[in-house]
């Protein structure tokens, strides 16, 4: 990457800024001109189907893999020319960074603290501090092999937090955890953000991005295909819609007329399900108007409501496939 001059000016005020990152594995373009802007102090979700390039992006940004072309800055440090400085400013946890399973939690943190060049005495104090912060004090002197999945991920997070990094990369931090473990990790992530750390989170779980992320970038086939807040993304693929289900199929036409009156778009009638759906812009007002017209026409309503598309639907419309359709490309090519 050192051979390629930046293709566009990078903004050091951003926590992560990449322009035109390219990574090729044989014939496969894992990253194909990937752009990303992450603002400081936010949680940024990187979403995409398996094989979309999420993991490659994280590996490139954390200095584990070298990009073939493009430019990137992490917390103001240039990825191409100053990898050591990048490493001082980042933390990495999740799929591809782990802790030693033979050592105890405390020994792990002390080891990593020493390798982060804190010196032995401070590595020890920092270990104690982090064990407490991540609620691992009771298990501190047990071997990590005996930890639960959630505990292990929290230790993993703690190990990445030793220098209180400016940018934290969490690569699928909750994959394979039970609901309780996920909740534990989410709590830890929120605590990180509370301390001012910027978090870049990759996930396959849309509800996780919805819960945690301030902004989301959608990646597919190595490129950014959408970027915005979760609400913006949902709005972009169609805002709210009103759904009316009638009790008597004979009244479907009356319901259709009631719906048509509140929208510039024509309603869709789903006869087998006795349902009428119409996209609307002004949500609450439209709902009230539809309700009033239905009452006026004497339509017996089984259900009426305002629905928002889920991130799952957003994803499906943006990429044309669901999140879990493709085989893990990174695994196959590494």
């Amino acid at each position, binding site marked *: 990457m050192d051979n390629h001059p930046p293709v566009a000016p990078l903004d050091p005020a951003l926590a992560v800024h990449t322009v035109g990152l390219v990574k090729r594995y044989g014939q496969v373009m894992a990253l194909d001109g990937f752009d990303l802007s992450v603002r400081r102090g936010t949680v940024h979700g990187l979403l995409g189907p398996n094989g979309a390039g999420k993991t490659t992006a994280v590996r490139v940004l*954390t*200095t*584990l*893999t*070298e990009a073939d072309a493009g430019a990137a800055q992490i917390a103001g440090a240039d990825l191409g020319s100053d990898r*050591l*400085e990048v*490493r*001082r400013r*980042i933390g*990495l946890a999740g*799929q*591809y*960074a*782990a*802790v*030693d*399973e*033979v*050592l*105890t939690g405390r*020994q792990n943190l002390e*080891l*990593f603290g*020493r*390798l*982060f*060049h*804190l*010196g032995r005495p*401070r590595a020890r*104090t*920092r270990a104690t*501090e982090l064990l407490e912060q991540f609620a691992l004090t009771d298990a501190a002197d047990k*071997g990590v092999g005996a930890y639960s999945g959630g505990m292990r991920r929290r230790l993993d997070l703690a*190990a990445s937090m*030793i*220098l*209180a990094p400016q940018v934290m990369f969490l690569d699928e931090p909750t994959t394979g955890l039970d609901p309780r473990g996920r909740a534990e990790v989410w709590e830890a992530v929120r605590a990180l953000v509370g*301390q001012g750390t910027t978090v870049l989170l990759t996930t396959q779980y849309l509800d996780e991005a919805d819960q945690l992320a301030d902004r989301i970038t959608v990646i597919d086939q190595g490129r950014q295909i959408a970027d915005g807040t979760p609400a913006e993304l949902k709005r972009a693929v169609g805002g709210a819609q009103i759904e009316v289900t009638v009790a008597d199929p004979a009244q479907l036409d009356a319901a259709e007329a009631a719906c048509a009156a509140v929208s510039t778009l024509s309603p869709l009638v789903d006869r087998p399900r006795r349902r009428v759906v119409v996209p609307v812009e002004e949500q609450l007002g439209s709902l009230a108007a539809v309700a009033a017209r239905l009452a006026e026409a004497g339509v017996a309503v089984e259900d009426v409501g305002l629905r928002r598309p889920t991130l799952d639907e957003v994803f499906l419309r943006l990429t044309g496939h669901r999140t879990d359709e493709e085989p893990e490309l990174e695994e196959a090519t590494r």
Partner: protein
Amino acid sequence: MTTDLQPLRRSTAYWAVADAWSMVWRQLLYYVRQPTTILWQLGFPIVSVLLFVYVFGSAMDIGGGADYTAFAMPGMFAMTMAFGFMNTAYAVVLDKEKGVTDRFRSMPMAPSAVVSGRGFGDLLGAALDLLVIAAIALVIGWRSQGSLWETLYAFGLLLLLRFALIWIGIYLGLGVKNTETAGNLFAVAFPFAMISSVFTPPSMMPGWLGFLATWNPVSATATAIRELFGNPVAVGSSWPEQNAQLLAVLWPVLITAVFLPLAVRRYQRLSR
């Protein structure tokens, strides 16, 4: 946040040593945490030597009425060193598989320490291995007839062989996919250790096999230390058997010269 988190400022050379030492410390903790590991690792050499000495021993005649136990014990030392590269390879592939290597690589530590720490840690482990099997050999009745210096030099030659094989271990460990495939390396390790002068003199093997055995680095070390310990050597007249002392140094130096750069290169290429 109460602790000052500013990393210490020291020279690159300082960190190359300090970080390597931290990695060695990690390996030493393994011995404290899992003291039985050492016995598992030594299991094969110990069992096979007991087998040869006590089961086949009475049928073994290496010529000249020499004591087979005194011949086989240095062989066991050399074999333990030869199999040692399996431990290195296994540890390396385990770290890679579990993501520990990636964590090290994402940290601002001296990059060389991952490889050098493994090297020196394994060398310390090998010294511990030698202590254990030498104790077993003493119990069985083996004695060194050489001077103190000759004896120490012999153990030094053993560690030199192990040191050279560390780089092959790292090279292979970084090359295999996972711990399961690492087990297949046994298919390489077994003939490497056995087609040698470890248990039988090469002169008693069929011609071509004997030829391989005489040139095997493990044989050179086994024969050299037998000479230094004053144990029966049972060598033929071939050049490598007559110059075992020289080869016991040359082979490890040559292996290190080839595989140390290869291992480092393969480590660096993890970023591809």
